[in-house]
């Protein structure tokens, strides 16, 4: 089973709608430990990305993600926006020249995205960031891919993202503006990890909670 660009565009459209639907929730999460703009910037970014996909006339998936990273960053230059943009660009590099993606390509692309976020944000697992949901989700996807196939693996990944998101509640922020709140961040989940749960719900075609 391979994914062509039309399927990528359709997924991005569902993703933009899901982020828009969860905008207020993300703003709420971010207001508790940050400056509250996460929902707004992510809504702008994912909408711009989906719009660009809808009008993309090529079938080169890598090229789309490469330029899509810039499109995203332009409307969402915040910290989280830059991290997501980086992930998108790194996926583009990984998928360079590809007109279709195998499940293995998808995993490789997501891993490149994770590495991009780690590198750019200088973050690791346990720092109370989006990585705490993203890394377990990508690991779960990879682990269950071979035995269960992609659709089931997406569901496992979504579950792992949700668990990771829950786990951020008890962590203390070490990076970014939230770290200024230090101990005050304990008890509140990370908004970036919240965004990851929305993205993986879309990929798993699960209902959003």
């Amino acid at each position, binding site marked *: 089973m391979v994914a062509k660009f039309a399927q990528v565009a359709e997924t991005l459209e569902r993703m933009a709608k899901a982020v828009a639907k969860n905008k207020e929730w993300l703003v709420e999460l971010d207001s508790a430990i940050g400056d509250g703009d996460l929902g707004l910037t992510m809504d702008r970014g994912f909408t711009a990305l989906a719009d660009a996909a809808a009008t993309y006339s090529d079938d080169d998936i890598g090229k789309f993600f490469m330029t899509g990273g810039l499109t995203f960053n332009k409307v969402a230059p915040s*910290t989280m926006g*830059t991290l997501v943009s980086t992930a998108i660009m790194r996926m583009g590099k990984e998928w360079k020249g590809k007109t279709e993606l195998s499940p293995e390509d998808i995993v490789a692309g997501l891993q490149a995205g994770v590495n991009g976020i780690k590198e*750019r944000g200088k973050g690791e697992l346990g720092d109370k960031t989006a990585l705490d949901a993203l890394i377990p989700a990508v690991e779960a996807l990879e682990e269950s891919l071979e035995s269960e196939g992609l659709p089931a693996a997406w569901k496992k990944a979504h579950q792992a993202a949700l668990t990771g998101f829950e786990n951020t509640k008890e962590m203390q922020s070490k990076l970014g503006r939230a770290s200024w709140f230090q101990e005050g961040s304990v008890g509140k989940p990370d908004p970036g990890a919240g965004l990851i749960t929305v993205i993986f719900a879309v990929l798993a075609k699960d209902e959003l909670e």
Partner: protein
Amino acid sequence: MKKFVNDPKKFTREYVEGVAAAHPDQLRLLDDALSLVRADSPKDGKVAIITGGGSGHLPTFLGYVGYGLCDGVAIGDVFQSPGADQIVAAAEAAQSGAGVLFLFGHYSGDVMNFDMAAEILEMSDIESKTVLVTDDVASAPRDNWQKRRGVAGLFFAYKIAGAKAEAMGSLEEVTRVAEKTVAATRSMGVALSPCIIPEVGKPTFEIGENEMEIGMGIHGERGIRRGELKPADEVTAELMDAIIKDFQLESGTEIAVLVNGLGSTPLEELYIVYRKIAQILGEKDIKVYRNYIGEFATSMEMGGFSITLLKLDDELKELLDAPAQSPFFIQPGPGGIVSGC
């Protein structure tokens, strides 16, 4: 909030448009990106030095785009990083194929956006290097100096790297002198009163009428200690002591001194501070080769000042002496002539 603004949301765009309107002979506004480049850029064969950061610190950052200084600047909102696309636009407009040096203060948002810009430029085969300014002694311990924030010491990095680039140094050479300057620069500040970010409308922090905060950052980041306000000489001595210790400055060393007002500190007070600095350095037999006194890196209307020392050798002295000119900073060359501008 009492401020001369129109729509606080348009604060950044409107002041940048004002700067562009005032100095079209020296600066060119890249309107879509809200970035500025030198009017005479790109200059054939010259390394382009690109800086950037949040607004609220004039003359930093855009005030140091000019002859013998930087070639372009990406301008963020007050205390916010500019976007990678703004940085790319400035770099593309100012570079001539000889490479780009990103030179800016160490803040996580800026680092991310400049790194991203570097990655984007790489795709179009534009080579870039990055040097972070990390001069604020109060922001991290000495053995961790590369994690320090960048404050007024940015000025020395611009001045030295800018002179090297103007002398047609290669990207490697310009990067080397920029790194050398950062390693030889130390700053520390003290704050008396907060500033108000126009879009926020409230003071960035609270501080008592008779209190000062030693080591506070230029966005109001927490300093080393808060205490009762002391006479100028005592405050100056405390800052100098911390900087000299961190530096391990020895007698006979030659240095440049920068006394920087944070926004609402009168020049008179800065000179009272300089008087004490000169006394302290005289006692230690440390020679002042050049001094700079005024506003170089502010924090809107914050009250307070910072002291920056740059340890010099022959190479740095020559580059520091080179002429420079921007709408916000003029230094004549040897013989009193601003040559080449």
